[in-house]
């Protein structure tokens, strides 16, 4: 597999990490392998990962025995992530039914090549990743904003973009 970095499997899902530069080759290899359906392209921003403390209860598989209060649940502390952004391409092979995830790690301004030549459906998904996360896609035929207005500034789904909205006013106040 061109550009292969590592692969892992958890929760029954296989993830393959690929270098950004050789993404298109890897995708063509996978499409030749039977993964003819691109299900989803998701961008994730890991800014501030693992920095804030977490609180709350931890669930267990199959329930916890109330008569043994010391029984512990599943926990895994968040490990460090290689770079700030991850682009995940979820693939499916029709009719076999195999699923895979291709993961690409990107820095702040690092571009990622477009997979539109491999799967035409990636067109709008990549535009959405650009619009909401600000990830630059190289070679995309029509990289413009899709969900927000054309003159919007900023990329809302980034972790350093505030949620916006306005403070709630109550009717009793002056």
């Amino acid at each position, binding site marked *: 597999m061109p550009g292969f970095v590592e692969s892992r499997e958890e*929760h029954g*899902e296989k*993830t393959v990490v690929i270098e950004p530069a050789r993404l298109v080759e890897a995708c063509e290899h996978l499409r030749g392998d039977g993964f*003819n*359906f*691109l*299900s*989803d392209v*998701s961008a*994730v*921003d890991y800014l501030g*990962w*693992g920095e*804030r403390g*977490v*609180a*709350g*209860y*931890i*669930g*267990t*598989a*199959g*329930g*916890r025995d*109330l008569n043994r209060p010391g029984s512990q*649940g*599943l*926990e*895994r*502390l*968040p*490990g460090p992530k290689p770079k700030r952004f991850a682009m*995940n391409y*979820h693939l*499916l092979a*029709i*009719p076999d*039914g195999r*699923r895979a*995830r291709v993961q690409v790690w990107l820095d702040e301004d690092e571009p990622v090549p477009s997979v*539109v030549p491999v*799967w*035409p*459906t990636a*067109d*709008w*998904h990549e535009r959405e990743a650009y619009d*909401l996360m600000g990830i630059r896609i190289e070679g995309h*035929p*029509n990289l413009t*904003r*899709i*969900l*927000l*207005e054309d003159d919007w500034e900023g990329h*809302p*789904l980034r972790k350093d973009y505030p*949620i*916006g909205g306005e403070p709630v006013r109550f009717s009793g106040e002056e």
Partner: protein
Amino acid sequence: MAIAERKIYEGTRVPSPIPTSLLVPEELQGSEDLLQVNFGPNHPSTHGVLRLVVDLHGETVVGLRAVVGYLHTGFEKNMEAKTWWKAITYPERIDYLSFQNNELVFVLAIEKLLGLEVPQKATWMRMCLSELNRIHSHLVWLGTAALELGAISMFWYCFRERDQILDLSEMVTGTRMHTRYFQAGGLAEDIPRGFYPDARKFVDWMPRAVDDYEALVDQNEIWLERTKGIGLLSADDAIALGQSGPVLRASGVEWDLRKAQPYLAYDEVEFNVPTYGNGDVWDRYKVHMDEMRESTRIVGQCLDRLEEMEGEPWIADDRKVVLPPREELQTSMESLIHHFKIVTEGYRVPEGEVYVTVESPRGELGCYAVSDGGPRPWRVKFRAPSFVALEATATCMSDALIADMIAIVGSLDTVMGEVDR
């Protein structure tokens, strides 16, 4: 799982360089016969706030560009700010016609990350409500699609059955739409006793209702003219464009997640997957009609099984994730503490990422959830089938007339809430 052997058209009709919009061909650019029309966001026939900028040469559509985003709500950003428990209210509103399926996919993602086991009764009830929701979604689709093509009376018949389904939903969950009934671990409350007889009445009535709908339009000359041979999409193009659900099955690919990658208890019920090979609007319509019948069968089987499970628990027993029953709050200190902690801080979901898919009435609905081990989602992304279906508009619209555009966009069964999220 077969892929159609018969080719509807030769080669691929996916436009290039931009696969999702038709560009006006060279010879017509600057021509005086070219008219650019805006099918604005407020239009009675565009199924919500979809804007299509269409270039017309006479009656033929030569250029098409879809503009979406008029309903962008920022779901994903909002969900990152709420606890996992509170965030379940958000996915329902994404695809507001199949609200149970949206809830289902998110709750399945949480349970997959937690590794939580759900009791049988909850699984079967979830399946029953999801299938009722599928019928609901197809009914609203049929009512509005027929309305746009001029068959106005279908609307009233479809909404009559739709009200029956919503009555059932209200009986079980307390509200008609956006029920918030699925929790991480099972259902919010037990199934009320009056549900089974009323649901059975509906299951007995529904096939006759579908027969009525088919009697209304199947032999109608106008309907046949407006839907047969319109909006062709071949199987290869459909897969390349990421189509799923009825659009893919109407193009000849027998792919249904309920059969191929069963979730809930779909491998324990009997139903068929309707597949037609012509890839036009008529086939998509037939797939929807047949799916309504099949869903009614599934609901009947679920009811049989649920009645046997009377008295069983409807939610998992893990008190660190699931709220304790209200009676216990009066007597047990630990229950009070659990309740308080779950409601205020929320339960922690272990670190990881999952991608869960479900067969929504529109196709493959996916939820990609990333957790950092805390009580709030780090990232939730919904793969909306309507978003992808709109990408196929340009391919379906090659050599189409303007009146066909309404039929084609209607047959792709898009819900704009899902497209824009």
